[in-house]
């Protein structure tokens, strides 16, 4: 296939996929300013008169101010914990030889297997005993623990492939192992760090089951749980829910926008197209 055909085909495909990707979000946006009856009467259409007030109502009804703060604290702390402890743990696994290395590697990555539902009850009892129910720490600590397997795996992968010569040169310069990690390895790992921040930030921000179970008090809940306000036994306040969802999703999109620069280097992009 020559370049012209390739370009045409790939543009076509890309546009198609972009439309499919964005459509539900557009739908959510469009319906967030309708009234509920309108949503059911004319699901596909644009709103007749946009009710932007829905956003204010949703903000107030779901107490989104405190929910945003709680989610931000929980996500920020968890991601920090995950990146720091994960990188530290992956370092020896990738670059040092010691007894039990394979064991620990398998142990950490086996954590991927564990589903949230399975450990809900033991964790609830644990936090109950520790007195951490209703504290954001319950959510922070669980999300951190569950975020470690993927994180360690990604760091491990990346660290392994850094050339030996680099480390030898550093050692000749008198660099200790911690120095090497901090001053050379980590700066090189920007793509991985970027990916980890996005994934773990996303997972923690949207995490629902643990937050629902451990955070009970008014004013102490994270966003996904607060959104439950729009679901009652009988019905769902769709328009308000969509408005709240749009607001809840924006920070993650912003996070992604800022992080993705870390793994898109300008050089490669130019070399391929040019």
């Amino acid at each position, binding site marked *: 296939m020559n370049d012209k055909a390739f370009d045409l085909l790939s543009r076509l495909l890309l546009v198609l996929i972009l439309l499919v990707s964005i459509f539900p979000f557009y739908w959510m946006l469009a319906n967030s300013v309708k009234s509920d009856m309108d949503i059911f009467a004319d699901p596909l259409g644009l709103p007749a008169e946009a009710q932007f007030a829905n956003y204010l109502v949703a903000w107030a009804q779901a107490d989104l101010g405190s929910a945003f703060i709680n989610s931000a604290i929980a996500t920020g702390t968890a991601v920090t914990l995950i990146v720091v402890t994960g990188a530290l743990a992956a370092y020896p696994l990738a670059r040092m030889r010691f007894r039990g290395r394979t064991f620990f590697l398998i142990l950490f990555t086996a954590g991927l297997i564990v589903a949230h539902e399975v450990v809900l009850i033991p964790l609830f009892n644990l936090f109950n005993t520790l007195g951490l129910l209703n*504290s954001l720490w319950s959510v922070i600590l669980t999300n951190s623990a569950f975020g470690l397997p993927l994180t360690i795996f990604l760091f491990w992968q990346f660290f392994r492939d850094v050339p030996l010569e680099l480390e030898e040169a550093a050692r000749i310069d008198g660099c200790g192992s911690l120095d090497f990690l901090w001053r050379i390895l980590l700066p090189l790992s920007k793509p991985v760090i970027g990916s980890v921040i996005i994934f773990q930030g996303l997972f923690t921000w949207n995490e629902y089951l643990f937050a629902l179970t451990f955070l009970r008090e008014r004013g102490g809940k994270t966003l996904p749980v607060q959104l439950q306000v729009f679901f009652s036994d009988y019905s769902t306040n769709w328009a308000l829910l969509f408005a709240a969802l749009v607001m809840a999703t924006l920070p993650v999109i912003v996070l992604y926008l800022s992080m993705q620069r870390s793994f898109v280097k300008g050089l490669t992009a130019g070399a391929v197209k040019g």
Partner: protein
Amino acid sequence: MIRRRTLLAGIAASALMTLPALAETVELTVWDNAGNPGREAAFAAFEAANPDIKLNVVTFASEEYKTQLRVTVAGGNTPDLFTTNGGFTFFEYVDRGAAMDITDLVEEYGWAERTEAEFLAADTDENGRIWGMPWNTTQYWQGLFYDKDFFEANDIPLPSSVEGFKDIAQKIQDAGRYPIAFGDKDGWPAILMLGDYLVQTTTPDEIRKLNTGENTWTDFKPAKDAFEAMAKLAADGAFAPGFLSMNHEAAIMSWVGKRTAMLYNGTWWPNVAKTDDPGFAIGVAKLPMIDPDLPLQGTQYWASIQLLMGAHLEGEKKEAAIKLFDFLTSKEGMILYGNARKAITTNPQANPEITEIAAFFREPEFLRQNDKPKIQFLDHAFPIPVIEVIKVELQKIMQNNGYTVDEALAAIEAAHVAERKS
């Protein structure tokens, strides 16, 4: 970085710390299902009249609520007051020791007059101890809401027999709508419909005998008739497409939005539609009958939610809790409750004074069920594992791909046998 974390932790901790309460205020933690305007009305009135008692309400949507309540009680954090479904679930909490024995209180305060004898009996154990009281609105199911204007304009007869419903379904479709809106995603309306079909041909007592084994699913003709009726309805296109994946809300909205002509649903549909006037006249029709000449043998009409107090209560908190319990179940409290939910309550003293009752409660279809023998809504009449099997078997039957009623009944019987042993 470490300092930042500590700072963040400090912020988090102080954000969550409750301010010390005034010495005189008692705080009660109450758990209930979310979206209960009746509770909201009653609680508001109570708090206004009792400024020294603060009510901390914890709610979840219904399925989530059952899980969370269980988890919290299992963890030793029983709420001060809480609601739960009656029957088997109710007694699980009693057996656990989570509930306060209120037999003496009932005696002392005369609470027995505030509800029907059989409802109170359902909250009483074999030793005569009472552990809770009914607290909600009740409703009838045996009926189909329908769009009077549409039926009249298109000259469509109302349902009478299961046999004859196929024609009616066809006429409805010819006139541009689908017949019955039925949201059976969670299997719940189907099992209630099964209950409705069972009481068409047998009495509540006979149905209850399925729990002891005196009647078995495979040998109980009413069960076979009921299953076959529902299978036939499904095969004849009585239910609007998507009924096995639609939730209640979607079903209701499709009826309110005039895409379906009839609705099988509880009397709480106005809460979903957020109006009780969808722009057409509403009637209540009979469910297609297995035998149109046979009168109803019973009705699903029951106090499905019970209110309990925690066994751990003592001192000031116990007094405050009793005060709240007393108010909520009283005539005054129940009038507030019933008006907010626009339905009749479990308190017969309050019912005559509830002014906001929806019009359809006065329809002949509902009134004719008034004095029939009562049974719990079927999803609380049997142990939970049996209920879950019934839901699945009903879905299999209504998919109409060769699965027989006999196979379904055998599966349910097998599940029930396991429960009868224990």
